[in-house]
């Protein structure tokens, strides 16, 4: 999976906007949206919010978790725990990037938020690497990781699978006669 695909999936998340136009309910394949009235908040998917924002037809309201104090608490919690803590949103990284790129004028303290989210991401990825490292070196058979987001999984997926493949090849070579050079590579 490519990270742009993960971002595409992230764009389905709902976010609150305040439109400056009016439109009746629209009926889309994924569901109904609206009606839109100027000045009244309405929930829409991120892809629509960004499109409207670029056409200057709305103002984006940052999600509740995108707040400096809440993110600071989460960061401290993440640093203390050895395991993964629950995330504010299953797509927190992508949403931060999209919203801060296109709507940073609607989000207070945008720079600090960007730094905090990056800190949280770095801590989690570090834990993930440690975990993957121990999994491979100790030849474990199965592991359980709670609270991982799709983007994080996607980051480690290619590496993990390739290294497990390599380990398998190496192990099969150690046992002569068991299997001679017929492996399927994914």
């Amino acid at each position, binding site marked *: 999976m490519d990270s742009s695909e993960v971002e595409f999936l992230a764009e389905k998340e709902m976010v609150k906007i305040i439109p*400056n136009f009016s439109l009746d309910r629209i009926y889309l394949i994924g569901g109904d949206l609206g009606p839109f009235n100027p000045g009244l908040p309405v929930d829409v998917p991120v892809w629509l919010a960004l499109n409207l924002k*670029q*056409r*200057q*037809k709305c103002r984006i309201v940052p999600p509740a978790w995108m707040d400096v104090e809440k993110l600071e608490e989460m960061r401290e919690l993440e640093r203390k725990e050895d395991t993964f803590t629950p995330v504010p949103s299953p797509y927190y990284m992508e949403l931060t990037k999209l919203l*801060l790129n296109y709507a*940073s*004028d609607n*989000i*207070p*303290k*945008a*720079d600090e938020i960007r730094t905090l989210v990056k800190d949280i991401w770095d801590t989690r990825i570090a834990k993930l690497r440690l975990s993957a490292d121990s999994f491979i070196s100790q030849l474990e058979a199965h592991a359980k990781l709670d609270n991982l987001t799709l983007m994080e999984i996607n980051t480690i997926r290619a590496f993990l699978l390739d290294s497990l493949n390599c380990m398998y090849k190496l192990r099969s070579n150690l046992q002569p006669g068991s299997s001679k050079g017929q492996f399927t590579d994914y």
Partner: protein
Amino acid sequence: LFYMLYLTNVKHVLCFQRVALLVASDIDALCACKILQALFHCDQVQYTLVPVTGWQDLGTAFLEHKEQIKLLIKQDDDLGVPPYDDIFRDEDDEEGGDSGNESDEGSEPGSGRREILFDYEQYEYHGTSASMMFFELAWVLTKDTKDMLWWAVIGLTDQWVHDKITHMKYVTDIATMQRHVSRHNHRNEDEENSLSIDCMRISFEYDLRLTLYQHWSLYESICNSCYTSCNFKLWTLNGQKKLQEFLADMGLPLKQVRQKFNSMDMSIKENLRDVIEESSNKYGLKDIRIQTFGVHFGFKNRFLASDMVHATAALLESTEKDESDSDNFIKALDSLSRSNLERLHSGIELAKRKLMAIQQTVASCICTNLILSQGPFLYCYLMEGTPDVKLFSKPIALTLLCKYLLKAFVHSTRNKRCKLLPLIMAAPKDVEKGTVIVVGIPPESETSDKKNFFGRAFEKAAESTSSRTLHDNFDTSIIELKTDDRSKFLDALITLLS
């Protein structure tokens, strides 16, 4: 105002039709084009962008698109148009709101109209910047953004840099823009949470009249800016000495001043503007500071409006090989967006070279007395072998050279009568076709109303001598002439204007 209402109504019609946007080749037009493009993007209007360099291009483009497109919006710098109350406009369905260059056949009878039209055609001068008008339109539609505001500021500054409007008009327009700037700044900074550093901040600056000084070294900027160069007479040895004294007077060590501006010591940069202003007053440079605007986004991107004008103009008229006019147009248009910083920086480098070329040409013209008084006007011809003469085959660059040269001449000559003369300049345009480009500018004066009568004069002189000329430029005081017809054309002009 008539335009505003017309264009707002037009907007509703536009939603499901295509628009042809014909844009002239000057910075104000480019800025207005960017504003319109942004507005079109908001409403997802389809448009075709056609750069035009003169009346012929305009005609061809109109004919090409005539079949498909019903409404036509043309824009270039707003050449002065008499008030609408005096002349009725007859808009048919084919021609739409343009920013005021042509006046269509009116239906008001009487001699009043004829007089006004005669005045209109005799002099040529510039009205309000087109980009400012489009910005006001965007504001009326409440779709104005900081980007559009910045483009409007650049359009206005273009008029000032290329000396198209009077100082009074510039100051009045700056005040109008300042109101918009404060409104935008107030809107964003009223919470205690300040904006992300990447957001664009426009600020009013009472900055130095030293071209591109923040992207160059202070010394180079002083040497190559028209104002300082003319007032110090930097083409003379005496002038150079005065400059050294000036720098010493301010306590600026030569080593610092020759470095890139950004690498100068902070202690020097802090009070630079005030220090320079104080010293300049002592040396007779009373207007070293000018009201303008600057933009600031990200950590290291700061630009003054005049920087942008010079950079974009250099890109628009770049004489590099393998670049067609439309390539240059697109590059110049791109450089106005915030996302194309390398384009902008390359424009700044080109602008520096252009300014240095202008300075050297001015110095050589004055020192070798290439400016001849022909009676009713001054005349200067740049010969083919002159260094950088290719740069001056383009209208905007040649006009800028012309203005600098006239200012320098006025400062250097002792002849009182010559100081009040207008200047005509000619430079080779196309060596293969054997043509020169001729530019005429009005005399230099403090209270000049910047009205230019050369358009008509050129036409009449060409007619009377049947010289082969091309009056294609939107600016009628710039024409193309066959080199061989030069002398008879000039003679005719002399007789005409005496």
